[in-house]
């Protein structure tokens, strides 16, 4: 891969301590983001997408630990002091969240959020400049200047998300992580937000990591896609290519589960996402995988590259010599019954 990547993640691991043991929410993820590109991260609920997104900002919840490295322009975020990391958040690394209704301080006017942000990162800025820059960014998001001094509760959900995006963009960060930015919004607003995010990467060279469970959004707005399963990235590649010819059975099943007008009968992947405290051995997907082989239950899959820029971690594509004799025989397992699924 080229080294023009603005953000490069190597073997990122994030785990939460619980009474039962560590929850490995992100387990050995490698990613790279180049300026101006949009990378979609998809996967089921609880597969570690949101934790990954926060990890990229070095923003870990209470009780979480991280390993591996997240290099922003070559500097490992985990080696930075708390202060240096904090100073990157905002001007270089931005984040927008899932539920815009609760993301603004309810006691503060919109203007106060901008004032705090700009004063924090640009100590010498004048009040006039703050106003000018904030209003310009808000206008780009379609928020009229007359609403600048309103309180958060005076806006709709879609407007609040646009305000959050404006707060994320006012400092022109190099990387923006958007964690399911449209999940709680209706479809029209969703389309609007997605268009705004698409414009942004064209006009400002911002690298966008778009976390979503909506494959339609990925198809429409993303250049590349990373499919996550149980804390692992199982497949990455050009969004169109991956969708046209998914290499990993999980990606294929996920795409088949998408609802469209031509859908007749819902397809779903039997079973539930695995327990991340005690995940299945070897390939995490093998208990639910329709193509599982003997080797899948015994050894971790090797990441291979069937096409340039396309990477997949699955024994179906794995080096034949490593599969071993008889390793490709279908995996015999007990049927997942209804009680197990529940």
């Amino acid at each position: 891969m080229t080294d023009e990547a603005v953000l490069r993640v190597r073997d990122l691991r994030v785990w939460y301590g619980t009474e039962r043991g560590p929850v490995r929410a992100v387990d050995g993820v490698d990613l790279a983001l180049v300026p101006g590109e949009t990378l979609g991260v998809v996967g089921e609920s609880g597969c570690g997408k949101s934790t990954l997104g926060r990890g990229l900002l070095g923003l870990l919840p209470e009780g979480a630990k991280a390993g591996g490295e997240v290099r922003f322009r070559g500097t490992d975020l985990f080696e930075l002091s708390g202060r240096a990391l904090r100073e990157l958040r905002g001007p270089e690394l931005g984040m927008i969240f899932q539920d815009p209704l609760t993301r603004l301080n309810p006691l503060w006017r919109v203007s106060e959020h901008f004032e705090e942000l700009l004063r924090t990162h640009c100590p010498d800025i004048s009040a006039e400049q703050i106003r000018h820059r904030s209003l310009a960014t808000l206008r780009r998001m379609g928020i009229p200047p007359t609403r600048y001094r309103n309180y958060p509760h005076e806006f709709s959900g879609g407007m609040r998300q646009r305000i959050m995006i404006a707060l994320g963009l006012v400092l022109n960060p190099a990387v923006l992580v958007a964690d399911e930015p449209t999940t709680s919004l209706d479809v029209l607003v969703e389309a609007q937000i997605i268009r705004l995010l698409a414009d942004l990467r064209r006009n400002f060279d911002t690298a966008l990591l778009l976390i979503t469970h909506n494959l339609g959004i990925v198809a429409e707005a993303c250049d590349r896609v990373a499919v996550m399963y149980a804390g692992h990235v199982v497949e990455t590649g050009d969004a169109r290519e991956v969708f046209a010819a998914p290499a990993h059975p999980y990606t294929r099943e996920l795409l088949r589960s998408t609802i469209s007008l031509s859908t007749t009968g819902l397809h779903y992947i039997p079973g539930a996402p695995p327990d991340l405290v005690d995940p299945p051995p070897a390939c995490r997907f093998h208990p639910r995988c329709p193509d599982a082989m003997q080797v899948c239950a015994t050894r971790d899959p090797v990441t291979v590259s069937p096409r340039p820029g396309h990477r997949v971690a699955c024994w179906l594509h794995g080096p034949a010599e490593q599969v071993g004799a008889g390793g490709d025989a279908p995996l015999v397992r007990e049927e997942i019954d209804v009680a197990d699924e529940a």
Partner: protein
Amino acid sequence: MSRTAGTLRRYVLQRLALVVPMVFILLTFVFLLVRVAPGDPVSAALGGRLPPEALAQRRAAAGYDRPLIVQYLEYLGNVLRGDLGRTISDNRAVSDVLVENGGATLTLAGAALVVALLAGIPLGLYSGRHRDSFGDVGVRLFGIVSYAAPVFFTGLILQLVFAVWLDLFPTSGQASPITQVRVDEITHILLLDALLAGNVDAVLDVVHHLVLPAITLGLLCVGVFLRLVRVNLIQSLQGDYVEAARARGIPERYVVRRHAFRNALVPVVTVMGLQTALLLSGAILTEATFNWPGLGSELVDYLNNRDYVAVQGIITVFAVVVVVVSLLIDIVNALIDPRVRY
């Protein structure tokens, strides 16, 4: 801005309109409560001490031989005109009792509230910020014990330790006799009178007497404030807008101070209003313990003498105070929290 002011004005007017039914309901309750006791106030207070004819005469003079509904309407009318009647046992106007003794209770309750806030809020903030630490456990324990301990018990312990053993503070009274003689009564609030007279010695003397009763009564409320602030802060610190502020690179101390603290303190104002009732009932016991010449001591005396006119008058005032305080609190709340106005 004008829009905000408009909604605020409307809110205050609506809230004021609510006071009328509230006061009406309270007055009805007070009246019924006093009349539930068997017999009428005159027989209750003087029965057995006067010959039956004289008793009947007093009863007729006070109007207690008329139907209850007439008495009720008369009571309402009198209260609205500010006439609370004359005490039966010592024939004072109840309003005089209020003026002469109300100041002492006001001083005590105000000082206790200051003690409760000054101790409760910082302890609660500390506890919430350092959750489950050694200090937090200690603070919580202190909160429970101080709340659960009966007021007279706390008062006696404080008297024993600080007045008798250490001899730091006086055991009882509102001021030394010299101060009481030297300070002219203007407002009937001794502390205020001393301040108005510019008499530094008198002010110090009054404050010196005030310390132990104020701490006693304040401790009753500290636990409530402390736990409320602690829980709210813990919630705010995990709040979505707090995480969003961190993601924007706002320094942690400002995240805590501006976003978490302020939002955690909003409910304190509400609870402060609710605590007024607790303060007034606690004041009765505190005053009895410290021989404090306030309404509480008077109430206890009149109760012992079964002087129901006096009791009814004092309770009426307590009830109205609670209503007025809750009105003020709601208005303050609307000023702090823009969402309340809607």
